C-alpha cells in the first residue's frame, strides 16, 4: 500500500437542495453525505457497507462524477475528478468506471450488446472501427461469455449474463478503478458466487482497484481487503472485514452484524 492512493476522498459533503417551490411549503435540504474522507490504495478492494439511505450510493456516484459534491474533493489516481471531467467525458471514463446494481436496466433495451459495448471503445478508447470486432470478442471472452451473443438484445440475457456484460463495458476502455454499486444484489446466490469469482479473477488479471458497495456483509467480507461502515452519511467504523465483523466496536456495526441471519 505505497504510493499515491488510487482513490482519495476528502471531506465530501453532498446536500440535496429542495426544488424551488413557488407554492407550498419550503422543504429543508437533505444531507446525504456529511464530510466523508477515505482513501483506497492501488490494487485494494475497499468495501462500503450500510443500510438504505446511509449515503453509500451517493458516495459512489460522486466517485465517478455522476453527482457533483456540494463540497470536498475526490481524487482518482492523484487527479481531482472535476479537473478530469473538465477535459471531457473521455478523460474521466478512462480512469474510473461504474457497475450498476440492476444489470438489465443498465443496458439500453433497444440496442444490441455489440452497439452498447462499442460506445466506450469509440468514445473512451478512441479505437478505430476496424479494430472493434477483435476487441469486442476479447471483452466477451474476458467475462466468460460467448462472442456469438454480441448481436442479441439485453432482454435475451439472464441477470448474471447481463451483469457480466456491464462489467465488460466498465473494463472496455482500460479504467483501473471500478466502483461496484451492489453488483450482485439483484442476482441469485449461485450466480452471485460466479460473478464474485469473476470479479476476483478480473482484478488479478487487470490489476484493478475496486470500491465495492453492498448491504450484504458476507458478500463484502468475501471480496474486500478493507471495509468501511457508513451510517447517516458518515463513516462510523473501518477495518479488515474479518476483524470488524467478528468484533465490531461501534454500536451501529454491532446491531448490523447481529441482524444478519446465520446458517
Amino acid at each position: 500500500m505505497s504510493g499515491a492512493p488510487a482513490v482519495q476522498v476528502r471531506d465530501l459533503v453532498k446536500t440535496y437542495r429542495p426544488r424551488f417551490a413557488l407554492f407550498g411549503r419550503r422543504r429543508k435540504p437533505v444531507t446525504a453525505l456529511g464530510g466523508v474522507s477515505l482513501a483506497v490504495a492501488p490494487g485494494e478492494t475497499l468495501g462500503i457497507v450500510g443500510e438504505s439511505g446511509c449515503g453509500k450510493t451517493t458516495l459512489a456516484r460522486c466517485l465517478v462524477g455522476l453527482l457533483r459534491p456540494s463540497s470536498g474533493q475526490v481524487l482518482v489516481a492523484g487527479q481531482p475528478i472535476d479537473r478530469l471531467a473538465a477535459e471531457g467525458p473521455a478523460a474521466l471514463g478512462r480512469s474510473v468506471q461504474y457497475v450498476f446494481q440492476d444489470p438489465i436496466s443498465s443496458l439500453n433495451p433497444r440496442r444490441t450488446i455489440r452497439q452498447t459495448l462499442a460506445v466506450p471503445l469509440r468514445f473512451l478508447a478512441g479505437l478505430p472501427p476496424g479494430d472493434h470486432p477483435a476487441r469486442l470478442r476479447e471483452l466477451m471472452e474476458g467475462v466468460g461469455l460467448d462472442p456469438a451473443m454480441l448481436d442479441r438484445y439485453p432482454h435475451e440475457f439472464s441477470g448474471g449474463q447481463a451483469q457480466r456484460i456491464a462489467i465488460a463495458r466498465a473494463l472496455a476502455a482500460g479504467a483501473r478503478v471500478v466502483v461496484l454499486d451492489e453488483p450482485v444484489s439483484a442476482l441469485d446466490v449461485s450466480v452471485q458466487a460466479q460473478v464474485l469469482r469473476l470479479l476476483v479473477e478480473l482484478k488479478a488479471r487487470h490489476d484493478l482497484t475496486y470500491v465495492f458497495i453492498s448491504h450484504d456483509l458476507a458478500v463484502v467480507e468475501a471480496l474486500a481487503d478493507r471495509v468501511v461502515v457508513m451510517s447517516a452519511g458518515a463513516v462510523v467504523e473501518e477495518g479488515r472485514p474479518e476483524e470488524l465483523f467478528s468484533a465490531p466496536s461501534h454500536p451501529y456495526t454491532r446491531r448490523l452484524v447481529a441482524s444478519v441471519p446465520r446458517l
Partner: protein
Amino acid sequence: MKAARGFFARLLRNRMAAAGLLVLALILAVVLAAPILPLADPDATDPARRLLPPFSEGAWLGTDALGRDLLARLVWGSRLSLAVGVAASLLAAVLGSTVGLLAGYLGGWTDTLLMRGIDTLMAFPYLLLALAIVAVLGPGLLNALYAVVVVNIPFFARNVRGVAAGLRHREFVDAARLSGMGSARILLQEVLPNVMPVIVITVSTTIGWMILETAGLSFLGLGSQPPQADLGSMLGEGRKVLINAPHVAAVPGLLVFLIVMSMNLIGDGVRDAIDPRLRTGLPGKPGTATRVERPDVPAGHDGDAGALLDVRNLKVAFDTGSGRNLAVQGVDLAVAPGECLGIIGESGSGKSVTALALARLVPSPPGVITGGVVRFEKDDLLAAPPGLLRRLRGGRIAYVFQDPLTTLHPLMRVGDQVIEAIQAHQRQAAGAARARVHELFAAVRLPEPDRIMQAYPHELSGGQRQRVSIAMALANDPDLIIADEPTTALDVTVQAGILDLLAELRRQRRLALVFISHDFGVIARICDRVAVMHGGEIVETGPVLDVLHRPRHSYTRRLIAAVPVLGRAKEILRTDPLEAPA
C-alpha cells in the same frame, strides 16, 4: 426484422385494424394511381352538365354546381387532403417530439420554459388558434397546414416529454454518459429509440384527426382555394347545393368518414400491437380464480389427516404464444397447524407461482392449473366455488407479499385499508373495526398505532409498511399465512425485527406459515421444515437443520455452498467443481 414481422402479425390479428388497413390501402392505391387513371380534368367546368346525379353517363359520381366531374375531383382532392394530413402529422411529430425530448431530458428551466410555451398553445381552443394563424398568414392550403401543425405540437410534446423525463434517470443513460457519450448523442442514440413507440402511437392516433382539421379549415374557405379540390373544399361547395343535389356533399363526406375511420382503427391496432403487455396473447380480463384443467381428479385421497394444507402433485402452466410452459411440475407439500414451512429456490424455480396457486391467485389467462389437489382442511381448493375462495382469501388464508409499497393502496390511509379487509369478511361497525385495527397495529408492534392509522403508505418506512401488511393479514384471524419474500426488500436490521415478529405471532396464535425466500439464512431463522425448489419441482424436503447440514440433493449442496457466510465468506471464492456454468 423479426420484431417487425411480429408487429405486423399482431396488428393483423386485430380484425378491426386489419379492416381499416384494407380500406386505407384501397384508397391509397387509387389516389396514388390518379395520374394514370382515365379521369376527366377535375377543374374543367361545363355549365351545361351541372349537378348531374351519380351514375350519369360520363360522370359516375355525377357533377358539381359548375359541371365538374365529381369522381375526378374526389380522387385528386383525396390525394391532396391525404398529402396535407400526412405532412402535417409528420411535421407536428418532428417539432413536438423535439420540444418534448429536450424538455424531458434537460429538465429544469428548459423544461419549465418549453412546457409553459406548450401550455400557452393549449390554452386556446384548437379551431380558434388555427383560425387566428390562418388569419395572420392569409388563406391557402400551405398556411392551413402550418396552422394544423402548430395546433398539434402540444400532443407530441407532452407525451414525449413524460417518457423522456422517465428515461433521463435510467441507469443505461448514466452508463452511456460514463462510456463517454455527449448529451446530444445520448439524446439521439439512447433516449430517442426508447421514445419512438410513443411517437409512432401518437402519429397513428392523431393523423386521422389532422386530416379532419385540414378539411375543416378548407370547408371554411381558409384552406385550398378554388378551383383546387380537396375534401374540405368539396364539402364546402356541396353545402351550397345540399338541398337540390345532396350527393355533391355526401360523396366527399363519405370518403372523409372512411379515411378517418380506417386511420383510427389502424391507430388503435398499432397502439395495442406495440404495447408489450398485450404481446403474450389476446387481452382478457383475469378471472377471479386461476383456471383449473385437471385431466385426472385423484379420487378418494384423504391425504395427511393432521395437515392443515395438503398439496399433492400440483402442476401450474402458462399459456404463451407458442404453447404451454409448465412452471410448476408436480409439487407435494403439507403444512400442519402452527407449523412453518419454508420454500427456498432461485428466480424461476416456481416458488412464487406455487405460493399464488395455493389460493388460485395465478392470473388466468395465461395461468392454468393443470393437475393436482390443494386440500385446505376438508376442501379441495381447486374444485372450490368462487364464493368459498373469496371467503378463504384474506380470511383463513392470508398473504404477505414482498413489496408493501405495491400491495398497499397509495391513496388510502393504511388504517382504512385494514378496516376494509376486516369488513370484507365480517359484519362489524366502523367503531369496532377501528378498535380492532388499533389492537392489530399494537400486536405487530407499530409505534403510535393511532398516528399510523392516519398515514398514507408513502409516509411510512419499508419496515412499517410490511408491519401494516402483516396486520392486514392477521385481520381475520387466519389459520395460514403465505408470505412471499416478505423481508427481501428490507434492510437487515429491519428484516430481523420482522422475522422475530412473525415467529412470535406464530407461537401466540398457532398460525401456520408458508415462508418463501431465496435466503437460506432467513429460512433457517424462522422455519421448522424447508422444501428446496428447482426447475418447478421440489428436489428435497426435510427439517431445516437436517437439510442445511446434511443436504442430500446435489442442487441443495450447490445452493448452500454458494451462500457466503459471515466469518468464512471467502470460501465461496474457491471454485466449486459441483458448480454448473451460468
